[in-house]
């Protein structure tokens, strides 16, 4: 039973939430709904008269297309490889930052520099570095190699740029996790006979698990939507497109709003699946939820 006062309070609560809700609907809810609607239409701006509802035909087109699946594979590859490398490197950096006694502020600042540089600017830096003739990294390679003109080396460079850029972010998230492990537990483990590695694997890692999962979740979602590094480095040439790149090419370059929107919706669904797996299967705490 909710009394008169309780009902009034509830109404007030709804009123207080309303502005935020309306803004959210306007800036995220509506665009999502609109791209979903577009994905159900034939909507190619080159043929403006020829627009109609075609159900799931766009989905059949995209999912039956080899380019989409290549891009999907490339995206998954980049995501998995870069996140794994970032996790390992990020952990090393986090431990180093956490344990540094002398010049703590300087170390942390230096480590965070790559994260502070705009991705596009950094991507151009990498591009010039790998351009034969002018690039300092390309000049280290044998004469006549142009790594950004081949699929394998291009993807490797994209991953390198990703890892360089986002490892500090990973390290920062992991460091907050390290700070959650009470020092006394590590002392207790030393007394119980654990060496450095055993203390890390048996005490620190299990206690950091929530922080690690959140870091992985954030980075996986981010990496799956990779766009700017690829856009600058190869623009998707030699089969190096990610799903976001081909969605962009279809939507903006090809002016095919229907197909482009379909790809966007598919990306959204993939991201939702990744988040679901992390939260339900691995038990990551969804951002903002109560710890379980």
């Amino acid at each position, binding site marked *: 039973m909710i009394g008169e006062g309780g009902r009034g309070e509830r109404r007030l609560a709804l009123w207080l939430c309303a502005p935020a809700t309306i803004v959210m609907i306007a800036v995220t809810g509506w665009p999502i709904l609109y791209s979903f609607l577009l994905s159900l239409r034939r909507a190619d701006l080159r043929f403006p008269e020829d627009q109609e509802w075609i159900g799931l035909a766009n989905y059949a087109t995209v999912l039956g297309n080899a380019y989409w699946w290549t891009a999907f594979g490339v995206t998954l590859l980049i995501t998995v490889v870069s996140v794994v490398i970032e996790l390992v490197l990020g952990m090393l950096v986090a431990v180093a930052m956490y344990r540094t006694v002398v010049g703590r502020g300087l170390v942390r600042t230096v480590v965070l520099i790559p994260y502070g540089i705009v991705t596009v600017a950094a991507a151009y830096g990498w591009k010039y570095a790998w351009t034969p003739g002018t690039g300092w990294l390309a000049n280290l390679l044998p004469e006549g190699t142009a790594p950004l003109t081949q699929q394998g080396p291009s993807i490797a460079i994209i991953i390198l740029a990703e890892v360089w850029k986002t490892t500090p972010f990973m390290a920062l998230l992991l460091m907050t996790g390290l700070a959650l492990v009470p020092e006394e537990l590590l002392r207790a483990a030393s007394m*119980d006979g654990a060496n450095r590695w055993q203390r890390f694997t048996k005490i620190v890692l299990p206690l950091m698990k929530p922080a690690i999962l959140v870091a992985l979740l954030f980075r996986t979602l981010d990496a799956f939507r990779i766009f700017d590094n690829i856009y600058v480095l190869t623009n998707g040439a030699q089969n190096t497109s990610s799903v976001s790149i081909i969605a962009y090419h279809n939507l903006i370059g090809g002016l095919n709003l229907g197909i482009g929107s379909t790809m966007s919706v598919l990306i959204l669904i993939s991201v939702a699946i990744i988040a679901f797996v992390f939260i339900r299967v691995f038990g990551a705490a969804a951002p903002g939820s109560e710890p379980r």
Partner: protein
Amino acid sequence: MAEIVLDGVSKRFPDGTTAVHDINLTIADREFVILVGPSGCGKSTTLNMIAGLEEITSGELRIDGERVNERAPRDRDIAMVFQSYALYPHMTVRENMAFPLTLAKMPKPEIAAKVHHTADLLDLTPLLDRKPANLSGGQRQRVAMGRAIVRDPKAFLMDEPLSNLDAKLRVQMRTSISRLQKRLGTTTVYVTHDQTEAMTLGDRIVIMQSGVVQQVGTPQDLYDHPANQFVAGFIGSPSMNFLPAEVHPDGLHTIIGTIPCGSRPRLLPREVIVGIRPELFQDTRIRHGASFTGTVDIVESMGAEKLAYFTFESGATFTGEVVARLDPKSPVREGELATIWYDPAALHIFDPTSGANLT
């Protein structure tokens, strides 16, 4: 089982502060030794040096005759109980207790047997599958003890293991720790700031202040023969009364009157501090005793005893408080005059500058 020897052990921190200065102490096999003192006196640092969690700046630490200064904690075969218990929150009680054995690569059936046996000893069997978060303070404390006992180490180190418990539980656990230590016969070093714990638990007590050992002895020894004013004030509850005194041929002039002290004045400096334990006072006449009369400020009835507080004023600036521990049947009343007797031969006299006991 082990003998622990601290031979001139000191600890200086990089910023130059000396936490522990030149400790010489031999802890016999099976002995229960208490390190006690106010916070910051260096008792925990000393314990951590024995554990290996803190490096020894100078001096030598020997366990069973072997120098262990350079050995990692895990190679010293010593178990420690922490004030916060330091239980691993992601492990069950069983896993917590098995942890040191698993690390020692003991065969699984043996681990299970040892954990079971220890859990039995500490009444933890019904809790074995719980996580620390689902245990009460007393239960966590027992798990921490269990994790130490299960390894059958050379020695136990305990860092204020009872201070996070409520008063009643603390007294219970105190007796059970005492019983357990006698039963297991394991050398134990126990750190506390609580003089009652120190007095009741220890075979011997080491009193520390500002990183320096003040006195080492049995509880009775420290009570009867405190080496200095600090020890005298630290041991005993309520604390010993300290009264500044001027030495005159007829006795010691204090705010509670002149205390006769025979021919001793000739041997004393001009000014001293007189120490009288509250339990030395009584409200009935003593033959050959001395007495003072004052107004009772406050009376605290404790049931088994009565504490009477007196305030004396001397001039405008100096006031002194005296507390007397009296028989519960004593008729003293707040706001009324009372005459209190004591035996002047039983008081302590301290040097006002060095604090040394001149008695």
